[in-house]
């Protein structure tokens, strides 16, 4: 009799652990491949899976085996023309003539690669490994909905409803023992004395001493009795604390300079940076929105297509974009509900007097509300006034403001990593 069982609904991913073990072992290889992929990929497939190649010699599991040489005899199928005693020249080195038996390939030369695909998730995992969103906990929280309440031990104050009876009684007991210790010791001594006195022959008893002892004992008993059973001091309450719940919504402002000085290559770099940030936010928040703001002398909110591809010329006034960002934040993205991230890319050009205005808007209106603001300057040239102004913003908000310079495409990923590197808790 056979049993037939349908196992199709059972777990499929039995090998997941082993697969992860494998990835873990070859982390170094994979990380390197991911880093390279980041720099060489076209913008639209950032964040797809990746083919990883590992040289087979690194994967080799060695065993004892027979080497070439000595006297080898082999039985082969499919004889066509040979008769006993024929002599055949040895086939050329490395070519043809499978070495038989184990079916091992002729010396791999280390060129063979073990190639496999990692999924998008795994790719991102490696890409963002060791990175952290700065300031995940919202700095300003309004309304109760952003909190949740957790138990956090015991405290001395609280409402009667949260009284912890067991801990209170234990504390009371401890206090009573502590406060009455000396008195009870004395009491015991006096009682022994009294007993000794009473056991004496009636003729020898000292009545006065007896009375004296009795008074003293009486007095001590009263004093022990006067220690309160329960004191305010004993009461213990369960402590509940409100923990801010990081809002699960994030909005990302992409600010880009599209003035005449920005060419397509520069914009491409900016775009990659924005994309990385977007992918990163998407992994950390349930819901992510993006606002694209581009500017030359005036700023405009646009869709993605226009943001990256339409051409504009003209001068540059950075503060126009910052003002627009401020306004949009006020209208649509209250900081109590949204985690706001700002990312600005520019080549550093700005109208001369405008940089100080930028400084003011950032300090007064934007920085207090955003989780993190990053500025990348894509230029091989020296910094201008804007950089200096931003530098002073960074001094005021060292935790929430970061700036870096990008010179070519290869810098983007390292700079990104640098901006978001996990900070070891001080």
């Amino acid at each position: 009799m056979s049993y037939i069982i349908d196992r199709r609904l059972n777990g499929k991913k039995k090998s997941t652990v082993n697969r992860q073990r494998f990835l873990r072992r070859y982390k170094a290889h994979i990380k390197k491949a991911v880093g390279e992929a980041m720099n060489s990929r076209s913008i639209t497939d950032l964040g797809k899976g990746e083919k990883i190649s590992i040289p087979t010699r690194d994967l080799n599991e060695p065993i004892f085996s027979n080497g070439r040489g000595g006297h080898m005899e082999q039985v082969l199928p499919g004889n066509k023309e040979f008769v006993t005693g024929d002599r055949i020249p040895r086939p050329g080195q490395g070519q043809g003539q499978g070495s038989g038996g184990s079916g091992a390939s002729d010396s791999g030369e280390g060129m063979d690669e073990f190639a496999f695909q990692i999924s998008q998730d795994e790719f991102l995992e490696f890409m963002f490994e060791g990175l952290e969103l700065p300031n995940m906990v919202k700095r300003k929280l309004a309304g109760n909905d952003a909190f949740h309440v957790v138990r956090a031990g015991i405290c001395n104050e609280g409402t009667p409803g949260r009284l912890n009876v067991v801990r209170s009684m234990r504390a009371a007991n401890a206090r009573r023992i502590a406060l009455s210790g000396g008195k009870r010791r004395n009491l015991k001594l006096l009682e022994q004395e009294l007993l000794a006195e009473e056991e004496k022959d009636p003729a020898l008893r000292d009545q006065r001493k007896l009375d004296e002892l009795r008074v003293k004992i009486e007095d001590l008993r009263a004093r022990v009795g006067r220690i309160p059973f329960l004191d305010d001091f004993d009461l213990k309450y369960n402590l509940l604390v409100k923990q801010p719940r990081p809002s699960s919504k994030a909005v990302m402002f992409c600010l880009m300079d599209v003035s005449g000085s920005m060419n397509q290559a520069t914009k491409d770099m900016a775009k990659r940076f924005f994309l990385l940030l977007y992918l990163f936010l998407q992994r950390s928040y349930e819901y992510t929105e993006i606002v694209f703001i581009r500017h030359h002398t005036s700023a405009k909110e646009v869709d993605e297509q226009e943001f990256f591809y339409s051409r504009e010329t003209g001068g540059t006034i950075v503060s126009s974009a910052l003002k627009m960002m401020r306004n949009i934040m006020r209208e649509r993205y209250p900081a109590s509900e949204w985690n706001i991230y700002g990312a600005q890319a520019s080549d550093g050009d700005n109208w001369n007097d405008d940089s100080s205005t930028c400084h003011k808007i950032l300090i007064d209106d934007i920085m207090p509300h955003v989780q993190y603001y990053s500025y990348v300057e894509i230029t091989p040239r020296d910094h201008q006034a804007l950089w200096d102004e931003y530098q002073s913003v960074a001094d005021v908000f060292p935790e929430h403001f970061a700036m870096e310079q990008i010179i070519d495409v290869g810098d983007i990923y390292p700079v990104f990593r640098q901006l978001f590197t996990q900070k070891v808790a001080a």
Partner: protein
Amino acid sequence: MLDTALNNKQPISTTSEWTFELIQEYDREIALLAKEFGLDTYPNQIEVISSEQMMDAYSSVGMPVGYNHWSFGKQFISVENNYQRGRMGLAYEIVINSNPCIAYLMEENTMTMQALVIAHACYGHNSFFKGNYLFRTWTDASSIIDYLLFAKNYIARCEERYGVDEVEALLDSCHALMNYGVDRYKRPYPISAHEEERRQKEREEYRQRQLNDLWRTIPKLGGGEEEATVQRFPDEPQENLLYFIEKNAPLLENWQRELIRIVRKMAQYFYPQRQTQVMNEGWATFWHYTLLNELHAKGKVTDGFMMEFLSSHTSVIYQPPYDSPYYNGINPYALGFSIFTDLRRICENPTDEDRAWFPDIAGSNWKETLQFAMRDFKDESFILQFLSPKVMRDMKLFCISDDDREKEIEVGAIHNEDGYRELRAKLAGQYNLGNREPNIQVYSVDTRGDRSITLHHTQHQRRPLGKDTLEVLKHLHRLWGFDVHLHSLNGDEITASYHCPEQGRDRSELEESMLVPKPI
């Protein structure tokens, strides 16, 4: 008359869709036939799985539970890769030597393939597992799953306590020596998880005591006399390297010894499979062929069914000639199937040649003869005993001899009257595990000195060791904890020596460069 008789026999199914009812029905019919043919099997447990699950099963050597290790992940990834690119089809079946015998059917298979797999795995392999002497004596079908579970849990516990890296490194080293973790002659005790757990504690204490005796460093009084008669340890060379290390390595902790033991047990479990590949596959192939043809003869399956079956059957038993780009050694299915089929022919229609070659079995009852051939042989002896001249002719086997002292390769025996016997012996030798794997044994341990271990490799026809040898020695060194020496001997002459750590180099520098895995 004939026509009406045929019409009465309805085929079980006419389409290629399968259902559980149909599988059950096919199984019942095949079981009946198998019984008629005298196949004795464990009860069957047929499990229908998806292709992903098949890949899982594949990468864990078919085992339903297994401990975690990266090498299985690597296996899985390469199977998955190849499958997704269509470079390989998955095996249609995997069968596990357990009681009940577990066979996997893939849901993508057609009804015909399911029937083929049932005949092949559930009755072919299954009866082989139950009947063959190697499996009967060396593996305990009823307890293997339990043991695997014990092993998995034990290793998981070790990972928790000692860290994944530690355990992984140790398993790597054990795997490198896995083929040298089997007892070839001694029958192991049956293993069971329950028993195993109970005895594990006992072993721990016992091992430590043994060790302490071996490594006692306090000299006995009157040592001067003893020096003269100092005994070599071990008294006899030991071929089971893992066993030797488990019992005698000086520095291993108890859990490490237990892990070595687990790998050893797995090796032991797979040992019969490695020795009976040709027979096992040949036997299963022979029976699926015979059973399904019988079903067809009884009108239980349609002609279309047979066409599909035969097309897949022929591709399974195809043997590419040696000069074909597809040639990858001798196909065990083809060889085994040919031998068993010819054996039946010898019993049923013997020729004069057969009478001369096989006087005992020519004309005998074929069912009994095949059972005998299946029960009491392994690949090597099976070929030596039953490979008939006809099969050698059909497969056009020939032998070449490649001697590195000669300039050219010489063709030895071929499929003719003068060559049959030699050819047969050569082919049998090719399936002797002892010839395929280098013969390496523990020769001595310097118990009084630097605690180094010395191994001897006895060359087979002057064949040297492969290029991985030093790598393997590093693993051995990790397990043993002290210097490892390996001498390769041709007769009494040492032709090559390997050392770990390598000699002649500055040790500390070497250890720093991390070439040598740190001893644990």
